[in-house]
């Protein structure tokens, strides 16, 4: 299982802030596609991803036990 965290508008679109997915060894790119289909999310091109609280790239792989956060462009400060 991997844990997926959603924030900001993604959280509202999906209707949840956290989900468990039964996946392993999947790239960020493919995981984005899975989620987009599952929740009809708006496009994720500009959404960053962090694996275990570190920014990751589309080609990086997620494995069981990882926490993957989808991070829309930030707007703090």
């Amino acid at each position, binding site marked *: 299982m991997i844990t997926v*965290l959603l*924030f*900001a*508008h993604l*959280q*509202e679109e999906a209707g949840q802030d956290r989900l468990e997915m039964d996946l392993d060894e999947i790239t960020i790119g493919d995981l984005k596609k899975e989620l987009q289909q599952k929740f009809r999310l708006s496009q994720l*091109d*500009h959404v*960053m991803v*962090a694996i275990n*609280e570190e*920014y*990751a*790239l*589309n080609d990086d792989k997620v494995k069981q036990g990882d926490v993957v*956060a989808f*991070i*829309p*462009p*930030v*707007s*703090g*400060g």
Partner: protein
Amino acid sequence: MNNELFQIVDEPIILQDLVDKVERREAGAVTTFIGTVREWTKGKRTVYLEYQAYKPMAIKMLKTIGDEIQSKWPNTKVAITHRVGRLDISDIAVIIAVSSPHRKQAYEANEYAIERIKQIVPIWKKEHWEDGETWIGDQLEKVSYPKGKPNIKGEVL
């Protein structure tokens, strides 16, 4: 008062607490930046804001900014607190305090910190206008990250 230098909180931020965290006998200058909720943005009136954070990672990224500043401006000391939750007009969203022996470094490091917060810290702002609400995207007004991810290595964009 919590002594952590980098914090995400949901209560009001006290300016003096941040200054106390960075004060040292060798410091001759302390700069602070106080980011407050502004009523008007490009002709649109804000009623209130909501900030959301990916808290553990946000704290980690604030620490990263602190490390970057240490290496760029040795002998500075930095504290940053960002608030989340509902904020009304004039409420404080973020305070950055930097101390250093000389003033130039305290100004530069402080401004660097706020720029980096807007680049790499996972915090989002939802504007509640008189006539609706929106999650605000990248305040740097870039539509995407040219390098595929936020500039996380301390380069100035």
